[in-house]
């Protein structure tokens, strides 16, 4: 019984993290129609930003907050150099460009920080909490809390603010939105930076648990795509709930079927969703994006 409970807790803890990264990915897809294969690399940038800041005497919580800004700034530059010039060409060009961005950022990180894994010190490292025989590390509690708060804030931003309405309009029908005076280009720029910054925070949050190295983003990108496809491309609520579902599937598969086939099972689910419900299991009507 406590084994099942522990497995579920593990799954949900990882799931909230997937939600946060997938949220960034789905926002970007929603407004730019871009499958951003460099999404995981932005988490890597957040992680290295936290490493750099912590090693230079900044306290870890401050470093996490600053990583939002660092990833955002780098996102802005990347958008300006790699995506903005391609805004009028076909979508596939931007997607290919994102693959280039991914390779470039990995190699840049290797050059600057060496390819070896590195440790980011958090004051919560090595401390855990036990409730009814279920253990969870305090760093993971922080990950869950920050992820949920950021997901909630992003949802409210989109639902209840002027900016949010503009984002939703631009994502639903950019041409009509432009006719109504919504600056869709600027909106897409800002949404991209927001999506990247959210992912950067995710990177800074996982750094003390997973260690960081230049290639860490690759597996995060694939997991985020599973989540986004499951929840429906461009669907914000779908990304948040999808993250939790993928986290649970993964941990139950590892715990009760086979740890060797854990990833195979997760990607098998992705395959089934693509075959039987390509619009995502949480999307009712197609086109209900962001």
């Amino acid at each position: 019984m406590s084994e099942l409970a522990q497995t579920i807790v593990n799954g949900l803890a990882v799931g909230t993290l997937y939600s946060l990264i997938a949220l960034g990915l789905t926002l970007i897809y929603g407004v730019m129609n871009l499958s951003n294969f460099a999404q995981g690399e932005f988490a890597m940038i957040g992680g290295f930003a936290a490493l750099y800041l912590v090693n230079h005497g900044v306290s870890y919580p401050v470093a996490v907050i600053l990583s939002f800004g660092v990833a955002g700034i780098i996102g802005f530059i990347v958008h300006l150099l790699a995506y903005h010039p391609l805004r009028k060409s076909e979508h596939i060009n931007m997607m290919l460009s994102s693959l280039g961005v991914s390779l470039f950022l990995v190699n840049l990180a290797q050059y600057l920080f060496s390819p070896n894994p590195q440790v980011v010190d958090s004051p919560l490292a090595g401390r855990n909490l036990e409730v009814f025989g279920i253990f969870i590390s305090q760093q993971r509690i922080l990950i869950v809390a920050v992820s949920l708060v950021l997901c909630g804030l992003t949802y409210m931003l989109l639902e209840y603010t002027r900016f949010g309405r503009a984002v939703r309009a631009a994502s639903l029908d950019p041409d009509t939105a432009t006719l109504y005076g919504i600056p869709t280009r600027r909106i897409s720029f800002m949404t991209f930076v927001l999506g990247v910054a959210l992912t950067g925070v995710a990177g800074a949050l996982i750094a003390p648990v997973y260690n960081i190295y230049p290639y860490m983003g690759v597996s995060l990108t694939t997991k985020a795509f599973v989540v986004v496809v499951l929840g429906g491309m461009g669907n914000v609520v779908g990304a948040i709930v999808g993250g939790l579902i993928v986290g649970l599937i993964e941990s139950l598969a590892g715990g009760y079927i086979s740890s060797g086939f854990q990833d195979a099972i997760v990607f098998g689910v992705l395959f089934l969703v693509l075959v039987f419900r390509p619009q995502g299991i949480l999307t009712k009507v197609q086109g209900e994006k962001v």
Partner: protein
Amino acid sequence: MSIASTAVVGISLLAGCAAPPKGVEQAAAGASGNAEAASEIKIGLVTQLSGGGALYGKQMEHGAQLAVDEINEAGGVLGKKLKLIAQDDQANPSESVKVTQRLVTEDRIDAWMGTLKSSDTMTDLTITSKQNIPSFVPIAVADKITELGYSNVFRNVSNNTMQVKALVDYILKSQPHKHVAIISENTDYGRGLSEAFTKAFTEGGGQVVNTEYYNVGQKEFSDQLTKIKAKQPDAIVISGLVAEGALIAKQAQDIGLKTQLYSYGGFMGSAPIKLGGQAVEGLIHSEYFTPVKGDKKIEAFVDAYQKKYGEIPDSYYSAATYDAVYLYAEGVKKAGSAEGAKVNDSLRAIKDFAGVMGGVSFDEKGQASTKVWIGQIKDGKQEVIYRPE
């Protein structure tokens, strides 16, 4: 540690090996003045000198260079000087074959040594074995390397099976743990280690309660560890390398799983302590070399190495190549010539050669009977807790 200081260390390391010590340079120049190639015995070293594993490749080069310099200062071998030619293979199989080919055909090396990876080593050996060039394998430990049927291959380090056997013997004899769980890398390396462990441990009266797998590069191990925790083992054996191993140790602590940890050669040196911190404290692992005090041969090697390179050789990468050069010199001396076939025969006849990693005798396949040590991480430092003989 700042980036700037890392860069400075990196650059000074590079500078350190780019410029050979003056004595050697002059000696080599003086020798080549008279009778060129015949006055030198050339040893080719193929390893990774750039990129991720360069740290280990450099240690291999340093160890070999130190031995070459020492031998030359003492008058060389058969009146000839040794010369080390190090080549970068970038840990890339095609590059490795290319530089080995170049060493054989252009530099006409008399002996070959390499590499960091078992698979690359095996392909390189197909080239050196055609010319019957004495070839040393000081680092790569896959069993298969000495099973290829070559008569010119010599490995002066224990292979995987010997490593597992030493760890199993140690646990059964000196530790109370009889019910262990294995968490294993889902690769040939990891599965090979865990199968060998399970077989030996069960035969010795122990029990493996469960075996869980993970992929290289995986970062989340809570599910595997939760499953292991439910089986309540006395100890956990990590069949993998330090990048994942350190995270496994940390995450075991996070879910309140406090048992003895065991692992293999991946946990040598300072990397596990840097990556695992408090979580790897007490971990016991198989070990090939640690700079221990109280052994004259080891102390002399560590002193000379530190004097020359400004750092302590904390793992087997430099000790193994250092031993390999001395083994080769011994083989040439005994053979009375640097001719490949003769040296191969005399190397196979070597009995109880005293190296820094222990006594070496080669069997007919070229595998040395070296002993595996057992190390433990105590108070953030590597300690040797068992050393045969």
